């Protein structure tokens, strides 16, 4: 129902005659004990009532994990040792962000459109107030992107969306093993000559299941029971190992 409502909202905004019809291999990622990353196939078609319009067609797919504020520390040498000196709080940085495009980003998306829709990684991170003492605040946002790119959490793969006859498109997005839980906001943009002509939004639900869910819930809802259970396991394991080794030596 939510998706339907979104479509109904979007249609009047984009009266250009092109519209996205989407399919997805899954709208849920279940994190089990053996979770080792996932691969999501995003595919769809462009629906038109009239002939194919002029201009270069572009498709951009973004998947964003839950956003949360992070503190970014910078080290400097003081008295011969490296210590954290400056800290900037970035107001909202997605825990995961993947962009897949059908052509180089700067060719199919204008800067003004990027600014409006916040598509590129740089735009998806929001940082408003750095302390007055810090003059190079953008360096801290860049650091977040650099660190998370190296952890495979942020990625931009250009030319990875395959376009067929200006109508069908598909791409696959790799989700790494170190995912956090939450709603992963997925957007698909259709551009003509760098301008967004159609947009489609949906969410992928990433959540822990089974034992993972049980342990997580227990640790938050019954912390004392969870703590005592952890201790009991530790004591039991210690005792078992001790008696087991004694048995071996006894033989």
């Amino acid at each position, binding site marked *: 129902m939510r998706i339907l409502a979104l479509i109904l909202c979007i249609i009047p905004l984009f009266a250009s005659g092109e519209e996205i019809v989407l399919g997805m291999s899954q709208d849920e990622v279940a*994190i*089990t*004990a*053996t*979770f*080792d*990353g996932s691969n999501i196939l995003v595919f769809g078609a462009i629906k038109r009532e009239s002939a194919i319009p002029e201009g270069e067609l572009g498709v951009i797919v973004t998947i964003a994990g839950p956003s949360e*504020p*992070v*503190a*970014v*520390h*910078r*080290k*400097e040498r003081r008295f*011969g*040792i*490296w*210590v*954290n000196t400056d800290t900037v*709080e*970035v107001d909202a940085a997605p825990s995961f962000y993947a962009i897949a495009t059908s052509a180089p980003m700067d060719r199919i998306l204008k800067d003004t459109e990027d600014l409006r829709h916040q598509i590129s990684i740089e735009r998806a991170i929001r940082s408003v107030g750095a302390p007055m003492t810090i003059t190079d605040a953008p*360096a*801290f946002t860049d*650091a*977040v992107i*650099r*660190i*998370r790119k190296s952890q495979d959490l942020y990625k931009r793969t250009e030319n990875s969306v395959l376009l067929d006859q200006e109508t069908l498109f598909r791409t696959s997005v790799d989700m790494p*093993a*170190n*995912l956090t839980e939450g709603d992963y906001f997925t957007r698909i943009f259709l551009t003509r000559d760098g301008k967004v002509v159609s947009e489609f939004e949906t969410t992928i639900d990433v959540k*822990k299941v089974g*034992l*993972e*869910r049980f*342990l*997580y819930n227990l*640790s*938050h809802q019954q*912390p*004392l029971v*969870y*703590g*005592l*259970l*952890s*201790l009991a*396991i*530790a*004591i039991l*394991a*210690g*005792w*078992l*190992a*001790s*008696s087991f*080794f*004694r048995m071996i030596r006894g033989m």
Partner: protein
Amino acid sequence: MQIYLPIAEVSVNIFLLLGLGGIVGVLSGMFGVGGGFLMTPLLFFIGIPPAVAVATEANQIVASSFSGVLAHFRRKTVDFKMGTVLLIGGLTGAAVGVVIFNYLKAQGQVDLLVKLCYVVFLGVIGSLMFVESLNALRKSRKKATVTTTRRQRGWMQALPFKTRFRTSGLYISVLPPLVVGLFVGILSAIMGVGGGFIMVPAMIYLLGMPTKVVVGTSLFQIIFVTGFTTLLHATTNYTVDMALAVLLLVGGVIGAQIGTQIGTRLRAEQLRILLAMMVLAVCFKLALDLLIEPSELYSIGAAGGH
């Protein structure tokens, strides 16, 4: 084979965790140290969030210490009376340490202070122990019969509340062990470890306990201190990862048994010299981290002032 950890929210290799647990367990059984000062940095290194690493490590130490202490208990090398006195001091110290820790946290820079604490204490204790045990080793080589010269601590003998610690063969006041326990408790709360690597040398050099008894007694009191810490972390920060703890402790308890066996076959001086070398190696690594320019100057932390 990978496993996704429910609290840490990262995926790691099962055999890596079992191996790490095993190695640290061997050291724990050999020297009577919990191994937290080794394991916690190792967990950071494989990508476990620091808060989860510290809390879960405490839980794992409970398991390996318990496994180790049972072996010592059967050999009657645990001084329960001394352990209890140290523990009373230790828990009081831990409470004081938490207050100090929170104060430092409010001032910022707590990470740096913890690291400096590590470097200073590991460095001092490691060097002292290394030199002392090297001398002892030389002396025992020269003379076939080792004459144990018990140093007389004049002022310590004068203290009130004298008690007989039968297992340790000591007749001393309860005040020195209480103070040692308190001091170690404070440090272990600040540094987030069981404190075995400080406690063991303190028992040998300050209290004059025999090395064989020291290891079991140290393990005995570590169980309670780290058990307390585990509960504290589980109820306030929700950072104990049971899946991670189980994997680490399976390796850990087996390692602790093997370590205890190795420990009984080595001479006391050799045991001390090995522990000293290990402590110095960790100290050296931490000092390098502070002195050498890191390849990434920026780091991402949780928002909210720390």
